[in-house]
Each structure stands twice: as C-alpha cells, then as structure tokens.
C-alpha cells in the first residue's frame, strides 16, 4: 500500500480470528489507520485481496459490510442530535435484529444521566464512550477499532477493556490500534508491529 511516494507496507498477510484480538502497533504515520480501513473495505489496497470465510470479497461487498463494526478515529457523532438519537440512528443502519436497547447501552457506557442531552454538551471522553456504545448489540462478527482508548479516562479505559473481553467471549474478532502496551489479557492477544512490516 502506497501513500504518495512512500510505501506503507507490502507483502503483509494477516488473519482476524473469531474470539481473538489483534493489536496493531507502530509509530505515527506507519499506516495503522490505512490498514484498518482496508480491512473494513473503506479503502482498496493497491494490490492484494481480502477474504471472508475463505471467499474473496471486493471492497464494498455487502457481506463484509454486515460483518464489520468500525470505530474510526473520528467519533462520527452528530452534535445537534441527542445522545440516544445518535445511537438509534447508527443502529438503524446496521443489520441488527432486534435493534439494540439504547437505554441499556447508555447504562453500560456510564452515560445514562446524559441520555436526554444534545451531544454537543458532552466532553471528548464522553463522546468517545458514546461512539464505542454504537458497537454494542450491532451483531457484528468483527470489531475494527482505531485508537479506541483515545480521550477515555482510566475508568473508561477499563470499561472498554472489559467490553472487548466480553466481545471476545462472545466470539467476536477484534482488531485495534493503541499506544497502550497491553490493554487486554495476553492469552488471546496477537500483536502486529507495522514498523517491522514497512519496507522502502
């Protein structure tokens, strides 16, 4: 994958397994976000292919789209909408049936008291919690998280780790980038260091 004149990574192969987490690491600008966007089908790699259950999928394949829950580095929240409205809108876009219970999600993310507020009144950390809450109950088989721990306080970080462990227990495959050394238990954690995968 090239960005401008620079090769981010080449000859890179990786697998996302159910109930296993993959921690993508590397210095700023090494292509972590690019790699995650390729995995979601939002970006098409210059070369190479994406397989789901052994079947080749192209970037925008609906199979891939119903599979992946994505949390980008932007929160993708509408500030003019209420906290619960943001969750309901995101849920309406998923294939989840039945729709996840927004009240339960807000309680899980520690945002219950803010349910009626407009999202603009939330702090950066609270917005991050809300964005993470979108993944709960979405019925995705893979979670792709770009720096999910950013802006979270220590309690929020623990909450997210707990959430990820539960998702792994439920058989969800998790891919995430983070500068934290080991936010999850080592037993089901793989690490991919992109600085080693780069080549001029």
């Amino acid at each position, binding site marked *: 994958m090239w960005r401008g004149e620079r090769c981010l990574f080449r000859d890179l192969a990786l697998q996302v397994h159910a109930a296993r987490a993959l921690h993508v690491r590397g210095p700023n600008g090494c292509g972590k976000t690019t790699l995650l966007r390729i995995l*979601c*089908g*939002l*970006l*098409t790699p210059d070369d190479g292919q994406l397989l789901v259950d052994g079947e080749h999928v192209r*970037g*925008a394949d*609906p199979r891939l*789209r*119903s599979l*992946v829950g*994505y949390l*980008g*580095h*932007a*929160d*993708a*929240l*509408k*500030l*003019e*909408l209420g906290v619960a*409205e943001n969750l*309901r*809108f*995101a849920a*309406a*876009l*998923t*294939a989840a*049936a039945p729709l996840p219970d927004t009240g339960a999600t807000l309680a899980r993310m520690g945002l219950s008291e803010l349910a009626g507020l407009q999202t603009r009144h939330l702090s950066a950390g609270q917005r991050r919690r809300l964005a993470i809450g979108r993944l709960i109950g979405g019925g995705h088989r893979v979670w792709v998280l770009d720096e999910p721990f950013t802006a979270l306080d220590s309690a929020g970080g623990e909450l997210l780790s707990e959430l990820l462990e539960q998702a792994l227990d439920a058989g969800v495959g998790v891919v995430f980038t983070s500068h934290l050394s080991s936010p999850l238990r080592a037993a089901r954690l793989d690490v991919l260091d992109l600085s080693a995968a780069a080549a001029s």
Partner: protein
Amino acid sequence: MIARAFLGVLRRDLLLAVRGHSELVLPLLFYLLVVTLVPLAVSPDAATLAGLAPGIIWVGALLATLLSLERLFRSDFDDGSLDLLLLSPAPLPVLVLAKVLAHWLTTGLPLLLVAPLLALFLALPERALATLLATLALGTPVLSFIGAVGVGLTVSVRRGGGLLALLVLPLYVPVLIFGANAVSAAADGLPVAGQLYMLGAFLALAASLAPLAAAGALRITAT
C-alpha cells in the same frame, strides 16, 4: 432492513436541518433577496418585470439550491458519519436517495412554497402561476439529484464550493431552459405540456441514475 435504514437517514437529516436553523433558512432568504434585487436594479415597471419573472425565479431557485448543496455530504464527511453510511449493509444508493429526499424537503420544497409570493412580486400573470409551481415541483428535485453527484465527487476537496458550481451548473442548464420556458409560454397563454413532459423525463432519469452515480462517487472519494 433497507426500509429501516432509509427512514433512519431521512429522519436524521430532517432533524439536523430543523435544528441547524441557518441551513434551512439561509438558502430561502438568499432566494428572496436575489429575486427582490432585480426590480431595484432593472425597473419597477410591471410589464418589464413580468417578462423577466420566469427567468429570475428559476435562476434564483438554481442559485439557492447550489448554496445548500454542500451540506448533503460535507458534514458527514468531516465528522466521520460518512463511514457509517458506507459501512452499512443497506445499499448505499438507497441511503443517498434518503439524503437527497431530505435535502429536497428542506430546500426545494420551501423554494416552491415561496414562489407564489415572488410571482406576485414580479407581476407574473396569474395564469402562469400553476405552471410555475409545476415546473418547480418537477425541476427542483432534479437539481438536488444532480447536486448529490457533484457533492459526492467534490466532498473530499477542501473548499470545493467553486469546483462544485463549475461541475453542477452546466448540468442544470436543461432544467433551467425547460422550466423558465414553460413559465414564459404559460404567461403568453401557450400550451406547456411538452416542457412539463421533458422536466418529468429529467426527473425520472435523475431519480434512477443519480443515486447510483452519487454512491459510486462517494465510494471513490472516501478512499
């Protein structure tokens, strides 16, 4: 699932337009101002104005729509919401259709509703009023559809407003010609069915192709 996503997007965009008042009111005020400037600049004479009225009302509607186009995808692109739309298992053209419909309801429809006031103001003959409303009802959705393709292509360009105008305005020309011409003809008491059929055909074409084209453009620009 597709209907749920469609309604979800429609509902959200309508809510956003209503809550961000300026987005709703600004194109409308712009429209009113542009049209009211003409009598000041040209002549307050009723006969002169009546001849110019169809063209002024249509050009005003076109420019007001252009002013409002960016919000179709710009804020979604900026805050990352576009990724949610792109990753939804619902077909992207359907979601684009919902966004265009919301855009028309909050831009085209208000333009249509104030048009009788402007027609009165510009001394447009009364018998042309029904035709004016019919051309706007058929034509303004086409403007929203074509605009969606243009915005889809330019959304990743910083300050892409000028580029958008260059891209979209030439495509607006047929709608402008048939729209304004039909109103002029009606003012002169001539039949207008031909022009209305053409506008109807434009609408059918835009409604069926523009969502696909805009969806394709968004997938490309998102990368």
